[in-house]
Structures are given as C-alpha cells and as structure tokens.
C-alpha cells in the first residue's frame, strides 16, 4: 500500500514535530510511507473564509497529487474533513472524489485501514482529550454530547489502550476551543474568550497533558496558555502515541 503522508501547511511550519511523529509512528506500524506528496495545502483556509476562487488552485493541486497513492494520511482532522466533504462538490472531478475516498485522519487510519484500534505502549499521565470540531462532528471521529453519544472513537480507543494513561474529565468535553481558522483572527475576541474558558476547564480537570488530533486547536490553545504563563503541556496525538509506543 502506497501511503502518503500529507503535511498541511500550518503543521509543516508551526508544528513539524507532529508530522515527524506521524511518520515515525506509521513506519513503526509497518507502512511504506512516501513523503513526495508535493502540495502544501488543500485550500481549506481560503474556502472556509468564503474566498472560494482563491481556494481552487491549491485544492486542485492537492487533489492532483492524490492519484499516485492508495492512502493519504493527515495529522489533522479539519483538513481531512475539508478534503472529504468539501472538495468533491467544489471541484466536481473524479480525482476529487478519489482523494476524498483515500484521505484519512491519522487515528482514523490506524484504527481503520491498519486495523490497530489499540496500540501497546505506556503513558503514565493524566490526559485531557480534545477532538477538533471538524474531526468530531464533521468526520464523526468521536461521539457528540448533543447526540447523547459516549465520547469514544478512534483517538479515544488508541489512548485508552495505553498503560498508565488516565483521562481527565472536562465539564464541556466537546465544546469548541475557538480556533475556527479565519475565525481566530476575524473574531479574535470571541476566539480568545472561548480558548480561555477551555483552558479554565482543563485546569479544573487536573490534566497534565492536553492531546488533540488537530494541531490547529493546539496552536491556538498553546498561544493563550503561553500568554497566561500556564505550563500545560500540549501534544499532538501522533507525538503522544509515538512517545508512548517507542
């Protein structure tokens, strides 16, 4: 199986360690991972800002790359959701439909096509899990409280299988952290207010580590935590799994 690691632009630039952890983890799980997926961005930032004309070239570029691979794995739920749900109707091409079919969020890929819903490893810390909204309610990679579903899903099962890991319970486990792409800047004050509430919830839960499958949520929460001088450790789920299973 030719597996491409597609690294979204902001992960590439701001959190490359998440991409490196993804690579290491996938290789340890026996995948032949290719790094020649040569498109920087799926077009989501422009698309979500409504500037669809500016999203097209990036999206087409992205989709064109996909035809060379059997699976494309992204360490980002929101980019995966964009590729899967927005690109086929937007580009209306067979390649877009193919890309939508073979693109996976990392945990989804490990638990699904790789058939490893749990991994052997150890992570003796109290961990708060944060699913990005697009992973949770867009890709349905976790239960939604609105639908009275338990919080599980591929990321939860991978984490739950680790020795020593305990989950911190948040009072609003699936409330949006306030990042929201262009929202973080266009509605900066509300965005920060939401992030602050998330951090307060995290503090109250006694979490030592915040883990997410979306580096964008982490980027935003970390930036607020840093401003407030909080020492919360944030990890992308790939970083956590890689460290725990090393």
């Amino acid at each position, binding site marked *: 199986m030719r597996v491409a690691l597609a690294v979204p632009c902001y992960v590439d630039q*701001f959190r490359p360690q998440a991409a490196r952890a993804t690579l290491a983890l996938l290789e340890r799980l026996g995948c032949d991972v290719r790094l020649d997926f040569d498109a920087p961005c799926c077009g989501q930032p422009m698309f979500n800002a409504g500037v669809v004309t500016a999203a097209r070239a990036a999206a087409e570029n992205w989709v064109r790359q996909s035809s060379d691979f059997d699976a494309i794995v992204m360490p980002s739920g929101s980019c995966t959701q964009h590729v899967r749900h927005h690109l086929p109707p937007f580009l209306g091409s067979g390649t877009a439909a193919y890309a939508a079919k073979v693109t996976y969020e990392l945990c989804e890929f490990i638990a699904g096509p790789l058939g490893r819903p749990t991994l052997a490893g150890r992570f003796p810390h109290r961990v708060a899990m944060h699913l990005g909204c697009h992973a949770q309610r867009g890709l349905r990679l976790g239960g939604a409280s609105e639908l009275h579903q338990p919080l599980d899903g591929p990321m939860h099962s991978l984490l739950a299988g680790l020795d020593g890991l305990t989950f911190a319970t948040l009072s609003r486990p699936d409330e949006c952290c306030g990042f929201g792409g262009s929202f973080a800047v266009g509605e900066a004050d509300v965005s920060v207010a939401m992030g602050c509430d998330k951090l307060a919830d995290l503090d109250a839960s006694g979490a030592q580590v915040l883990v997410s499958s979306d580096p964008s949520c982490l980027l935003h929460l970390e930036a607020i935590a840093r401003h407030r001088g909080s020492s919360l450790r944030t990890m992308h789920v790939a970083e956590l799994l890689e460290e725990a299973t090393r």
Partner: protein
Amino acid sequence: MSAPVGAARRGHSEAAAGFLVDAERAAWHDQSLWFMRQKRDKATALPEWEQLRFAGSALKTHAMSRLADLLEEFERKATANGVVVHWARDAAEHNAIVLGILHAAGVTRVSKSKSMLTEECGLNPFLEARGIEVVDTDLGERIVQLAKEPPSHIVIPAIHWKREEIGELFHRTIGTPAGESSPDALAAAARVHLRDALLNAGAGITGANAIVAETGGVVVCTNEGNADLGMHSAPIHIACVGIEKIVATRDDLGVLLRLLARSGTGQPVTSYTTHVNSPKPGGAMHVVLVDNGRTARLADEVMRTALHCIRCGACLNTCPVYRRSGGYSYGHVVQGPIGAMLAPAVDLDVHSTLPFASTLCGSCADVCPVRIDIPTQLLAWRARAAAAKRLPRGYALLFPLLGWVLASLNRYERLARWGRRIQRLLPPSWISGRWNPWTRPGRALPLLADESFREWAQREGRHT
C-alpha cells in the same frame, strides 16, 4: 426590528468585542445559556430522539414542498370555522392589516404575547406611532419592552438581564419597592401589572408556533399562559404567523411540539399548548399570514431548509459564539446560528459579517430538532458575501494572497523561508501588539519552527 442600530453596521466581531469588555457579565451569560443547553440534554435523552428529529425534518420538508396547497387548505378550513384570514406580502402589509383591524374596531390598547414575527415586522413601534398602546405580556418580553430594547434571544428575550437589574427597572417603571430583587416578588408584581393590561385590552395579538392545514387551527405555546389570557379576555384575537409555520396534519404537531419544548427549554411539553380553531362566541378572530421574504427563500435551493426552523432557540443556547457575544451583537431579530443564516437573506449588505460569526463547530446542527445543516449554509453565505464583495475587513486582501501563495509549492517554501528570517531578525514586540488581531486579545504569537517538516525531510534525504 428596532435591533440596536450600531451592531450590524459595526459588524459582529466589533459588537462582540464590546460585549466581552465586561468579562464577568459575559461569563455569566455563557453560564446561563449553557444551563439551558444542559436542560436540553437531559430532556432529549430519549431512545427515540433521533427518530423524532428525522420525523420533524421530514414533515417540514413535506410541508414546504406543498406550501401553497397547504396554505390554501388552511384558509378554506379556517374561513369555514369563522376565522378571517389575511395575506401579507411583507412587513408593511402585515402592519397595515393589523392596524386596519384595530381601527375598524376602534381599539387603542392591545395586549401582545411573544411573537418574533411581529418583532420582525416592527409592529410595536408602528402601532405606537399611530397612537395605539401595545403591552407585551410575556414576562421577558415585557422586561425588554420596559427597558426599550429588542429581545436578545428568540426564546428567552431578557436572558441578558440580571435579576437585580430587573428589580431596579421594575422599581423605576412599575413601582416595585427599591432594592427588591427576589424573583418571586418581581414575578408577582409583574403579574398584577400585566393582568391590568390583559383585562383592559381591546385586542389580543399572538404569534403562533404552528398552524394546521387539516383543521384550520392555530397553535400557540407559552409557559406563562399569557397568550391564552390575551386572546380570551379581549374581544378580538389576531394571530400573526409566518407562512412557514404551516404543518399538514395534527399528527405532525405531536412530533413538532415534543421537539420544540425539549430542545428549547428542556421541558417535556410547554406549560400551555393552546389550539384555537374558531373565534369565541361573540368575538372575532383574525389570522395574518405573512411572507416577508419566505417564498424567495423557498426558491433558494441551497438555503431552503432555513424555513424548517421552529424557533426553539437550541442552536443559540449551544452556540459557543452566541453565548460569548450576546444577542445584540447580531443586530437582527433572530440571533445566533439561525439568525446568522436568516439575516443575510434579508439584507446581505447589512448583515454580511454574521456568517463569519461562527467557528463552524457544528454543535448547532446536532442540537437542531429539525436537522438544519447550519454550518454548511453559513459556509455558502460566506461564499456569497465574497461574491458580493462584502467580506469582513482584511479578508479581501489576505485570502486571495494566501491562495496565490499556497497554490505553488515553490512560492510557499520561499515565503516560509522569509518568514523564518524575519522572525529571527525582528524583536517579537514588533510583530505582536495592538494592531495584530492574533495577539491583541491575549494570545502569544505562535512561532514558526526553526526547520519545517519539508526542510527536515529534504535534509534527511527522505523526500523521494
């Protein structure tokens, strides 16, 4: 209608920033609404809840697909029951019809039970300017009326008022003792005050939660019984209804009413659910059916399902943005996620920032009892705002540029290298600060990694 003027003009983001200045009040607002959301969660934990939502969505789709037929059937049945049915193309016609009815009967005092449609049409100021006294009889609605404000929430109009403030308002306006803030005492005072208005009104205006084609009847839900008192104590009952409120049969109502109460207030059923099919003996009953842009929305394939909305308010309560920006930041009669998609349909120029007042988290779609896909429609509104050159400030510059950069690996990598260089050279204080919306409200600047993943892969010879 009289929505705070500044809000829409300044845009949602600025208005929300204003709301957030009082951090304590904003936190309290968030908590009060989250409490409603939790009540909703408890009340909707039914084994058949998801089936109910599908049923609700399907029966609305059905009703909207046969809208004209059902409305005509309603008119036939209602007329046969002795009800006078009026048709209003827009807000102006609606107001003129109501005024005409009042004038013909020589009415100068009207009691009104909560109706978002009359808010939408600006009925109160219209009637008051013509010498007719209007008393809103829903407690929350009366509070905002006394304060000369529009509602800030479609179901809980005075949710932004603290009880101490209500005590003060009542002291000033209806003469309760100074310093009185116990909810019981204030409610009792309001009850006396409202009873007088209810008993001495020449007409009672109500909204309607549904009208039923099969019976020609009007269904009104309240928790205070004020609609019932209003329509029964006055000789004339006028029900003002948006045409999308029609359902085909009484059986459909069984689904909708369960969805409404549980989603909106977390009750199994509203305290008073009243079916009115005909005028009381010796009295008159009018129904004003209002379009005001609804058929135009029906013709819009992408945005059509917005008409399914039963105004339960659940999407407001769950919306993390609404909770932290307050109802007035929307500058529209309907606030929150549903308002953000209804308002641009009314006037995209004025309300162009509302579709951007969302993280697209999707919680609204998951609580919506009639399964309206709000995020997808907000996204579509964003694209329309862009096409109409009505993007929020900065977007029209930034995103085309970003698109140009991200469309080419080469340009992207070069820009990133430059960014890293600048980051190394410039003191951080130059790139953070008041002008930078990322850092201004209390966020540190995220730093570009010393080496991007791609650079690493190339250095390691991993890029094949």
